[in-house]
């Protein structure tokens, strides 16, 4: 779960962290805005920490573009002398495309199901009182915290009994155990940010509960839905543990297939770095798009106070 708890965590902490107001920026005193030496020290420290954070990512991308002769030398040089796409060409000739297609299908199905179920449940616990509501909330909290490794054996046994081990459907079901608690939790907070009065007015006008939800509330949840969908997609796309025991043969996801490449003696690092770059790029793209949605989500939350 660990990777599990990657990007999904961001909405919570950022809730109190409104982006600093533009107008107040000038008056807002920086706690440590002192001498020039102090500032220079901060800049250096910041540069170091940024280098530490993104250095490995840059190295991964650079390695995927270097010719074999430059990768495998006793004293690796920092700056590549030439750029090559042979590793990518090599990768595209293998089973890797199939792995990525599998990962994509699994992630899309997981996202669609967990978004549907999670939105309905989030709406239920945010808007209604019904018997079992508190139990459902408690289950949500527990399953959100529950480490996936503890679920591994029993989930495997249940899926094996149902004949779902080895297929993509089994992976989707396994991923739902990770994504549904989270999507429900996120959608609950997004629903709470939408005013209740609109749907109540719609109900007075004769729309039923389902009609009020579908026609009034759901369109207002667009930002929340987009954010939640991206989080679910990334979680499923990254997941390794559960997929590694359920996926078999041709039906492995990208992380599982890639993990199997390092065991051989002749490790093709260039190809592996090309695959690593390929598996990272969709996540990075979503992350930078997600950033915008985060802020939209925050302004809604901000209205609520």
């Amino acid at each position, binding site marked *: 779960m660990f990777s599990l708890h990657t990007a999904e965590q961001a909405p919570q902490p950022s809730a109190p962290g409104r982006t600093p107001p533009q107008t107040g920026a000038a008056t807002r005193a920086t706690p440590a805005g002192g001498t020039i030496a102090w500032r220079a020290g901060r800049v250096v420290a910041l540069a170091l920490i940024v280098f530490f954070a993104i250095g490995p990512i840059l190295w991964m991308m650079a390695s995927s573009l270097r010719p074999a002769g430059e990768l495998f030398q006793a004293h690796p040089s*920092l700056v590549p002398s030439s750029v090559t796409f042979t590793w990518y060409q090599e990768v595209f000739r293998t089973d890797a495309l199939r792995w990525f297609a599998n990962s994509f299908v699994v992630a899309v199905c997981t996202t669609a199901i967990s978004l549907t179920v999670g939105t309905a449940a989030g709406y239920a616990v945010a808007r209604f009182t019904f018997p079992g509501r508190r139990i459902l909330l408690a289950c949500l909290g527990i399953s959100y915290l529950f480490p996936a490794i503890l679920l591994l054996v029993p989930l495997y046994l249940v899926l094996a009994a149902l004949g779902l081990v080895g297929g993509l459907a089994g992976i989707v079901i396994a991923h739902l155990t990770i994504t549904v608690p989270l999507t429900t939790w996120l959608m609950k907070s997004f629903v709470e940010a939408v005013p209740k009065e609109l749907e109540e007015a719609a109900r007075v006008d004769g729309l039923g509960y389902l009609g009020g939800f579908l026609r009034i509330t759901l369109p207002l949840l667009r930002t929340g839905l987009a954010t939640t969908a991206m989080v679910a997609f990334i979680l499923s796309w990254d997941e390794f543990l559960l997929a590694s025991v359920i996926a078999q043969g041709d039906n492995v996801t990208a992380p599982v297939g890639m993990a199997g490449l390092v065991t051989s003696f002749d490790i093709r690092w260039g190809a592996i770095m090309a695959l690593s770059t390929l598996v990272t790029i969709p996540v990075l793209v979503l992350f930078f798009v997600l950033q915008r949605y985060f802020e939209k989500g925050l302004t809604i939350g901000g209205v609520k106070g």
Partner: protein
Amino acid sequence: MASAPTLLTRGPAGRQQRAGLAFAAPAALLFATILGYPIFESFRTSLFSMDLLTGRATFAGLGNFGALLHDMALRSTLGHTMVWTVLSLAGQLGLGLAAALLIDADWPGMRWIRQLLLIPYVIPVIATALVWRWMLDGHYGIISANLQSWGVLQEGANPLDQESTSLATAILINIWRGFPFAMLVFWARMQTIDRAQYEAAKVDGAGPWQEFTHITLPNLRSAMMSLLALRGIWTLMYFELVWLLTRGGPAGSSETLSTYIYQVAMGEFQVGYAAAVASAAGLFLAAAGLAAWIVIRLRGRRRHV
């Protein structure tokens, strides 16, 4: 309890409750089948001696739990798990706090730097593991090659493949991966600190260090607590990174509880015993969680009195 009868009445209250139940039903069903039932199954399996290859299961009662006490491999695994958890958390929180202090400034482009610093936390764990394995490769890895030329590391050695350094290296990589999350939580909390406190401190002649210890740090206490609780559970049971970096080796030198459970279940096919280890870990987590909750409750009460 008036709720059950209300559910069945014809009035608006009953309709409201039925609507809530209907929205919550899919998630409740999903929780029961893919989370609740497997957890129950986990406890049941732990009472059997079960071989995944032959499929034979014999009732073992509490035998599996008894075997836990005499498992020497488990004992050293627990030691590694403690070291892994404590040092990972300390590193992630420490570096996260430092990074949060550094990005808490009104300098131009800070938003982008914040984004860049979050990248280690969002990229897929498989890419993290593979790129670090590449950088630490004993012959061509950029980090290992440099360490070797400085004489810190033996010729041709990979820190991940040496018993003395495998766990420490995995911890360092885990710090790299996890510090951005702590940074985000700390930074978000810092944005809510009243700036007037800093102004007042400045008037009183406080330097940056005093501002940090007397204003910033006390305000970050709650963020620190929730980070410790959440990250504590997930780091304790974090599987992917250790497995993908070292598979718990060499010679079990980086084996943590989660890789041990995986190894016992999927490598040795002792499903019953793996379920017993997982159940014991789950019970321990639940007990720790309950204790923490009670302590927080009691302290909260005392503060109010």
